[in-house]
């Protein structure tokens, strides 16, 4: 078994900044619930960085799932979305880019240009946050309630792949609701 065969699941965000930590929380719950029950080999980690640092953590894997808070301001709190990195809209960038260095897309392009082995398949799961401006280790109620749904999305992505989510409710797909 090499790193390449594993799927890397990363919880992103700041665990002491309110809903900013929901990506961590979802991956923690996923780890405690599913890690020993999956057929596929996975590795789990938690990060508070973006850009080049995030790209560097992805080196060596074929598949990765990034779980992060989003703060678009236009989606309902707790709204769960799932989409491949290629479809990452600007408003969803959050921790996936550290503007102190570069975007994840640019960082990955840099890594590939330099010959690094980076995942060809990066799926992103986001949960819309409500409070990201006040330090707290608690999630807002609506965001906390969305954690099981996000965990289910992670589990489905690993077990059945991105296509398995297509029949799922609208909230699982990257589409803004008509009346957010």
């Amino acid at each position, binding site marked *: 078994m090499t790193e390449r065969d594993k799927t890397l699941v990363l919880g992103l965000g*700041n*665990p*002491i*900044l309110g809903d*900013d930590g929901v990506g961590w929380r979802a991956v923690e719950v996923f780890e405690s619930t599913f890690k020993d029950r999956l057929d596929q080999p996975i590795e789990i980690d938690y*990060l*508070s*960085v*973006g*850009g*080049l*640092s995030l790209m*560097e953590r992805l080196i060596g894997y074929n598949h990765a799932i990034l779980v992060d*808070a989003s*703060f678009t301001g236009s989606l309902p709190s707790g709204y769960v979305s799932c989409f491949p990195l290629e479809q990452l809209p*600007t*408003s969803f*960038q*959050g*921790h*996936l*880019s*550290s*503007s*102190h*260095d*570069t*975007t994840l897309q*640019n*960082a990955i*392009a*840099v*890594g590939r*240009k*330099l*010959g*690094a082995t980076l995942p060809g398949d990066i799926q992103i799961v986001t949960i819309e*946050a409500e409070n*990201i*401006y*006040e*330090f*707290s*280790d608690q999630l807002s109620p609506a965001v906390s309630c969305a954690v099981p749904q996000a965990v289910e999305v992670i589990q489905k992505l690993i077990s059945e792949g991105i296509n398995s989510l297509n029949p799922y409710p609208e909230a699982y797909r990257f589409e803004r609701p008509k009346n957010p």
Partner: protein
Amino acid sequence: MERITIDPITRLEGHGKIEIFLDEKGNVANTYFQIPELRGFERFCVGRQVEEIPILTNRICGVCPEAHHMAGAKAVDAVYHVDPPRTAKLLRELLYSAFYVTDHTTHFYALAGPDFVMGPDAPVAERNILGVIHKVGLEIGGQVIQCRKYGHTVVEMIGGRKVHPCTSIPGGLTKGITEDQRQEIEKMGRWAIEFAQFSLKLFNDIVLGNQAYVDLILGDIYTHRTHYIGMVDENNKTNFYDGKISVVDPDGKRLGKYAPSEYTDWIAEHVEPWSYLKYPYLKKVGWKGFVDGKDSGVYCATPLSRLNASDGMATPLAQAEYEKFFSTLGGKPVHQRLATHWARLIELLYAAEHWVELATDPEITSDNFRTVPTEKPTEGVGIVEAPRGTLTHHYWTDERGIATRVNLVVGTTNNYAPISMSIKKAAQSLIKEGTVITEGLLNMVEMAFRAYDPCFGCATHSLPGQMPLQVTIYDAQRNPIEVLKQAC
């Protein structure tokens, strides 16, 4: 009056906004620089064991957690009235030097580099690290990544984990390093010295070798005559980890040096009704508004400030570059803000040299890396130089060591006033009656504050990392007449 809004600032951690107000003729009347407030960190810390705070504070921000960990560790030492053994100080400083090499390298190649290597008005899609690598070569890109890898490795060896170190405790560290690790660290440090020298040569060739860039650096657009502060050792040489804070006036005269515990005697904060930002200034000089000069308490805390506030660098190669820097730019102090990029590279070389000095110290592998505290905890201040400015942590506890109050003055906060002044001056110089507002022009306004390497990750810490630059132009009645956006 027209109004231009740059919201948020690109390539800047956190969400910042610049508003530029034009008068009836189309000249800049005023500018405002705003960032969102982050609340509740003090409340979050109160009631916790104080030794937990250096671990918590390095979660404030994903950009310089090592700086918060070190300032916090020193504050906790002070709270417990304990002086760590020499080996602990050496190890902390070694970790910190490696972090500095990583951070300054990333800034130069990912943030500052694009403006100079690609040009200030290059297409935005190319003005990033990918464009830099494309232009200067794959090999350099590989070295940037290698440099970061080495820095992260040292942080992990000494700090217990990458990026967010956790080994500093009251009186020292939880662990030391082995001889094998020391040898590996030394080897990486020697590589870092060569890389730093290469980076300075690159700057010399690309920037100093281009008269247009030299004119840009030396021009009035990006020049301010302010006070400067920076940490120095007992010989008044620049230091990032330990020492006193040297304060010099716009003529370069040293007004004094303060120890961490004396910071409130020197630094006060001014409040403006239009912003929730607090603007630190030199208490002994006084707040006279957003103006230059000896009578204005506005000060700057950046790599350029550190060089201006010191008498030199403590390592030979960096000292030679320090001398070249001031002789080329007309002596001390240097007021041209874009020279900060050069100063940063001199600091990069110092950090790499110091990395090797520390790694070859005979005591670095000693197992005497902690002094157990014996006194009752009370109150303490810890100061380090974060890459982007002087970082102050101040903790108060009860007799059980439970935090009762916390105050942080983070690196970028020091520079709020000079950043605001630089934005205004650049905007007034670049946007005149009849000027066509282009993306390249606005990027040159952004360059005014990018030189400060501002990071609001810990000053405010908002979520959106990188979002499009939005520029809204308002007419005299403050109605939006045009919106420009960019993303990079």
